[in-house]
């Protein structure tokens, strides 16, 4: 199982932070809570968070024009962010999700606080899953190199085995030709080359095992990705969320986070 992910929770509403924080922790996330745009920017710039939940009115809840949360979201474009708001509008959704001059949108999603912590956690789990799938795709090139290395080691081991065998055969021939006087040097060289061949073979084997492990993980993740894509096609919000929740819950071993559904089933408690 992978390590827990860290979520930045930026909201000036202390009560909201207090209510949502335990839920995220219970869901398997490490939470860093901040209450001002400056603190949020500092945490993002330190780069030790995987995801961020940012209130759009981070400076002043009463100010209809406050978009300080969006300004914060422009920092650290590589960290996926969800904009959270009590006052969802289509303009807010546009501002959060349309790409800017740098080609990045400030956020990957927008959610309303009215939806409650369970939906928020589902969103986080979904995004977290997508990040891991993308990370796995990014390792494709690395594992292609490992596969080449495995091939090179394998052929080196074959070449060394043949050379060692030939040297040992030559030593036997010399011994027979010279009245069973063994040429220690050529025997030793033959044995050393055979040992090197075994080492090469082991290296090739290890590299192949790593590649096989990666391939298995990739196939499994590809299957999850296809299921999540299929869920995205569902138009009904509730059914789509149920579908995403079911896919993430059914493939828990791939992800570090625990969904509230499974927690409640495991403990026999109802979700808050």
């Amino acid at each position, binding site marked *: 199982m992978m390590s827990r992910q860290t979520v930045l929770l930026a909201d000036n509403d202390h009560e909201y932070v207090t209510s949502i924080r335990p839920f995220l922790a219970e869901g398997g996330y490490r939470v860093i809570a901040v209450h001002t745009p400056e603190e949020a920017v500092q945490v993002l710039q330190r780069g030790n968070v995987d995801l961020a939940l940012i209130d759009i009115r981070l400076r002043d809840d009463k100010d209809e024009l406050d978009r300080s949360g969006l300004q914060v979201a422009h920092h650290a474009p590589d960290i996926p962010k969800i904009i959270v708001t009590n006052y969802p509008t289509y303009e807010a959704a546009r501002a959060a999700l349309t790409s800017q001059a740098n080609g990045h949108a400030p956020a990957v999603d927008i959610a309303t606080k009215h939806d409650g912590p369970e939906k928020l956690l589902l969103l986080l789990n979904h995004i977290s899953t997508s990040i891991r799938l993308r990370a796995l795709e990014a390792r494709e090139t690395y594992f292609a190199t490992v596969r080449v290395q495995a091939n090179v080691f394998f052929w080196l081991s074959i070449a060394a085995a043949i050379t060692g065998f030939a040297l040992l055969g030559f030593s036997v021939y010399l011994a027979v030709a010279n009245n069973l006087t063994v040429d220690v040097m050529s025997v030793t060289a033959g044995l050393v080359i055979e040992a090197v061949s075994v080492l090469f073979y082991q290296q090739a084997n290890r590299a192949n095992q790593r590649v096989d492990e990666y391939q298995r993980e990739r196939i499994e993740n590809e299957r999850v990705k296809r299921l999540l894509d299929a869920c995205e096609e569902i*138009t009904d919000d509730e059914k789509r969320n149920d579908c995403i929740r079911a896919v993430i819950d059914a493939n828990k071993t791939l992800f570090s986070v625990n969904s509230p559904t499974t927690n409640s089933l495991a403990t026999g408690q109802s979700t808050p």
Partner: protein
Amino acid sequence: MAPIRFLLIGAHGNFWQRVLAQAVQPFGSLAATEVDDLLPSTAAQYDFVVVDAAFVENVPAVIRQVRRGNPQARVLVITLSPTWKRARDALKAGAVDYIKKSLDVAKVREEVQSALDKIPPP
């Protein structure tokens, strides 16, 4: 710059189509189709697709269909009654923008220009 090929997905021949045709005239030419006539290969022939949400039942699905056919295409969604949820779904499906319908040619042209400046999401 080569003329941009625009496609409107919505009702064919309505008043708003004429507004859009005038708005995009400086950039290129506009064709129109109804959503039922949209073929998987159609999107590949256009650089910029405008989806009129009034005539499309499942806007995110159409956006994904267009983007599958042409990942480089910019998709702009226009609607008379915008909501944050529909905006969210459209933008997450890959639209470059989601705007309110206007009959003001200059305003529509401005929106198209703004959408042209945006990079389609990956």
